[in-house]
């Protein structure tokens, strides 16, 4: 469809979204506009990608990959959505490609009887030793942060992405659906199951300080 045909029907993102206007300046090879976009979005991308892939260094590499893709596609950029939706669609694709290239997946287990070496296991032992039967209300912030992080890592990759976009970016179901190339009803179901899975992991610590009876199964959607 020609741009002139689209302009009469689509919302005027270039008028309403200041970041779209910036990106159109980048399209015209405005280096300062590109740097401004980097400054505006680097922290947001890092936050989502760090919790998505579970590592800061990889998140930084992926964030720079995202910006590189943005720059390379500047000449063909057409504002058909909010800039953030377009940007995180690229981020989702970059993360998906990175995961495909991984030779080994990390699995987070909360069961201390598990003999495998997992990032969460030592933490679980630490929690058991340090808190034991102490109610979860007395857990300090660092422990709580680690429990929440483990809970998020225990989600499937799709659940994790949907949760992070919903929580960190305050994205609507429709926008998340665009980013993840699903329909809004599927996102509604995905987020519901994700929140239930998070509840199963976090709630025991919040209420009683006890480890959950059933272990979360990564990848279960």
């Amino acid at each position: 469809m020609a741009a002139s045909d689209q302009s009469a029907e689509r919302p005027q993102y270039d008028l309403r979204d200041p970041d779209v206007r910036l990106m159109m300046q980048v399209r015209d090879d405005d280096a300062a506009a590109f740097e401004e976009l980097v400054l505006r979005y680097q922290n947001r991308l890092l936050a989502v990608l760090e919790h998505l892939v579970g590592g800061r260094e990889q998140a930084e590499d992926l964030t720079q990959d995202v910006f590189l893709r943005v720059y390379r596609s500047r000449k063909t950029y057409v504002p058909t959505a909010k800039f953030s939706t377009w940007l995180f669609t690229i981020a989702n694709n970059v993360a998906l490609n990175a995961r495909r290239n991984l030779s080994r997946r990390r699995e987070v287990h909360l069961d201390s009887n598990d003999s495998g070496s997992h990032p969460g296991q030592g933490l679980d032992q630490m929690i058991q030793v340090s808190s034991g039967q102490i109610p979860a209300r007395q857990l300090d912030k660092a422990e709580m942060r680690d429990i929440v992080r483990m809970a998020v890592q225990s989600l499937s990759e799709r659940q994790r992405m949907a949760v992070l976009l919903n929580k960190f970016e305050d994205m609507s179901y429709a926008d998340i659906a665009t980013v993840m190339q699903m329909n809004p009803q599927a996102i509604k179901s995905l987020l519901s199951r994700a929140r239930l899975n998070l509840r199963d992991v976090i709630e025991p610590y919040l209420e009683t300080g006890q480890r959950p009876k059933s272990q979360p199964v990564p990848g279960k959607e």
Partner: protein
Amino acid sequence: MTSDARMPEASEPAAELAEELVAYLDGELDSAQAQQVENRLARDAVARRDLQRLEQVWDALEQLPRTPAGEDFAHSTVEIVAQTASEDLATTMAGLPKQRRRRWWYKAAAIGASLVVGFIVVRSLAPDPNQALLENLPVVESLDEYRAVQDVDFLRGLENRKLFAEEATHGQP
């Protein structure tokens, strides 16, 4: 989200109720659906408790750290992009002469072909100005002698008397 979706009753699977509660917390229900949820919450203590638990867990995600980028991150990102862009440009330029040569050959071939075709077409359509000269060549070759004779009738008279018949026979191919 359409208003056609109804609020699950207590006997229905908890997953459906959870879906509506989560969507309600996220502000994703239309006014009619939201009203249904609120009516359910008003009469169902279990639903109220479920909503509270979901909200509590969701609020706990605020504990997730969001470490800002380092001071040099933006600068290094722009540098990497600029360097990559330069490499992309260098790659494009390195391939450009070959492409240009090919384009020049294509252009030259097209021009040559059009020239040949044009020559043939013009040649076939336009009259040949030399044709008249070819037809009158015998006269042109003896033009000096013909100028010496000022009267054509006089020449015809000489021919009729056959005074130069033997020379005329020898002159014929």
